[in-house]
């Protein structure tokens, strides 16, 4: 569908729903112990089939990140946020550092220069913040 609240074409929707929910938990938007949106709420929001939304929720439930409370719904499990943040940290090198190095190599930027660039950007941000 044209407007699926920003979901992309190239990956299965259930995986994208799972990823979005995980990101929301990691960022604290969904607190531990809080109820996560129901299958139908997610389906209506993303404009997707409810079975697809359910599959996305089940990915997180199977990983122990959500608890099912019979007749009420799914809730963010205790310790989920820490688990997700640790996972994100572990993927940081692969997701951000390696592509950065690939592009830097392509442009002939050496690691010394790269480190200096990062420091410069970081200082600038800090400067703005102060």
């Amino acid at each position: 569908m044209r407007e699926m609240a920003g979901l992309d074409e190239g990956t299965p929707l259930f995986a994208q729903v799972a990823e979005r929910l995980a990101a929301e938990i990691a960022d604290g938007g969904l607190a531990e112990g809080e109820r996560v949106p129901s299958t139908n709420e997610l389906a209506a929001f993303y404009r997707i089939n409810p079975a697809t939304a359910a599959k996305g929720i089940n990915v997180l439930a199977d990983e122990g990140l959500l608890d099912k409370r019979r007749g009420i719904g799914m809730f963010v499990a205790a310790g989920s946020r820490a688990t997700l943040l640790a996972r994100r940290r572990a993927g940081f090198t692969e997701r951000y550092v390696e592509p950065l190095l690939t592009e830097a190599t392509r442009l002939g930027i050496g690691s010394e220069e790269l480190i200096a660039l990062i420091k410069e950007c970081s200082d600038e941000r800090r400067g703005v913040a102060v």
Partner: protein
Amino acid sequence: MTPAVSVTGLTRRYPDHVALDDVHLTIGTETITGLLGRNGAGKTTLLRILAGQEFPSSGSVHVLGSPPAENENVLRRLVLVREDQEYPDYQGYPDFKVSHALRAASFCYQNWDAGLASSLLEDFGLRANKAVKSLSRGQRSALGITIGLAARAEVTLFDEPYAGLDAVARQVFYDRLLAEYADFPRTVVLSTHLIDEAAALFENVVVIDRGRVVLDAAADGLRGMVTAVSGPVLAVDSFTQGRPVWERRGLGSQASVVMVGQLSGEDRERARSLGLDLAPLSLQQLVARAPGWAVGAGSLTERTSV
């Protein structure tokens, strides 16, 4: 559980052509299925046979566990909304109004929800006291959709239901369909050629070409299943080596290859480092190519989940 629809060896022959040719199909209860294919592929004939409005030449058709033809017990639990739907007698009765069409429908369907019908009319901006004969094409479609949803029939068939509806009205239809399905789960089959805008609604898709089912699969499993890879020839070849390839085009030092198989994060990373461009094929693009690979194209023809 008995499937909502079960079709085996269904053939429908006309004097001059074969509309359906040995169709086998199962549609699970309370699922939304997209029935896709080109004009004249046999979608309408199939839906009309499911609705008992046409008869098979051979083969067996079961809807809600029984053959639908002349079967009151099936037909009052089923609704078919057709493209360019005609309404009973409106040619003979110039005063036949939208409200009359709704009243007639309320007698046909045991789960009819009048409140839902009026809220749908409001969403579509259609007045109940308007004469049916003066409706525009889009308004007739809106009336058909209203009846199809408000019928709350266990089996709800939509055959290209939105001729003349603009994008906003179609979005109303999709949103109300999902909301209705959530509140009152039912088996929905929607035939459409606006595939990409409806793709995310489907749990399963069935593609028909020249009377035959060429694809019957879980819709979400097809997403990202086929990708166009383009870039320098050597990089493209190295990346796609050992993977099923549908099509290959080259121009000078550049190549573009359409390959089958989900890509992992690692694959994407590798493509990026090789300087390759990855463009996933949309469902619409997949369906356009479906006749070419037909039965036996491996993983794509199997349901990837239930």
